[in-house]
């Protein structure tokens, strides 16, 4: 996923919804060689589709794919 390609609107909404639903207000994310980001900052990065936002989207997507493909359960059972 590159910065010049716009995210699908539904995908962005899904990631923002998951962010809102699963991340407590007191959590900060350390990722990607940058400062740690609050929930509100993460939302802003996803909205802007900048490198931090896209990294977070990719992480969410990889996790969803692992859940839906059965890979997540398979790896945990190993």
């Amino acid at each position, binding site marked *: 996923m590159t910065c010049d390609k716009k995210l699908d609107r539904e995908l962005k909404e899904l990631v923002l919804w998951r962010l809102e639903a*699963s*991340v*407590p207000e*007191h*959590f*900060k*994310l*350390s*990722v*990607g*060689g*940058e*400062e*740690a980001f*609050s929930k509100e900052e993460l939302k802003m990065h996803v909205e802007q589709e900048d490198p931090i936002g896209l*990294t977070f989207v990719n*992480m*969410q997507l*990889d*996790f969803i794919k*692992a859940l839906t493909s059965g890979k*997540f359960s398979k*790896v*945990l059972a*190993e």
Partner: protein
Amino acid sequence: MKRGLLVTRPSYDDATSYLFYYAREVIDSAREKGIKVLDLVRPRLTKQNFSDLISKQDPTLVFFNAHGDEKRIYGDKTDEDEEILIEEGRNHTLLSKRIVYARACYAAASLGKVCTRKGGCFIGYKTPFSFWIDERWSAKPSNDKTARLFLEPSNLVVISLLKGNCTQEAFDKSQNMSKKNILKLLRHKKEPGAMASIMLLWNNIEGQDILGDTNAVF
């Protein structure tokens, strides 16, 4: 090569200050075992000192705690810039034939591959190494049970090596502890932050990689 552990520990933002603290637990474990530790922290954490220590002390095991990218691992931040300690194509051969654990983003994607061309083992992450910080404990990382979910399994890479496990065993133990943490969280998945932590632990499991000699022993 001499049996010793070199650790880099910058501390200039939330992420590096947590790594700084948790790497200390590994250093304590090494010292309890009588292992020589070269602990590079500010103001001694410079590229020059790092290179000199590698050349003169010739440590078997190098443990980076830092920001990184596909071709670089950084050291301390002075003024505006982070100093590059290791860079592919410039001084990566300093790591050849050693056992390296890079707790840094992306370093296994490219740098790790070139470092192990002439031998040695590189354990790191081909994706971002990431973790949640509970802001309520950021002044006292030892009490941050959320961050511990991520940093303890990564510490286990080096702690296992210090116990005499080979690199593949150390890698496997780290992966298994992350999986156990996911299973623990799944049992309490309605607790705040549980699913967010599971997602990140999964990404760290998937991104962690071992390159080079999987039978190397410290």
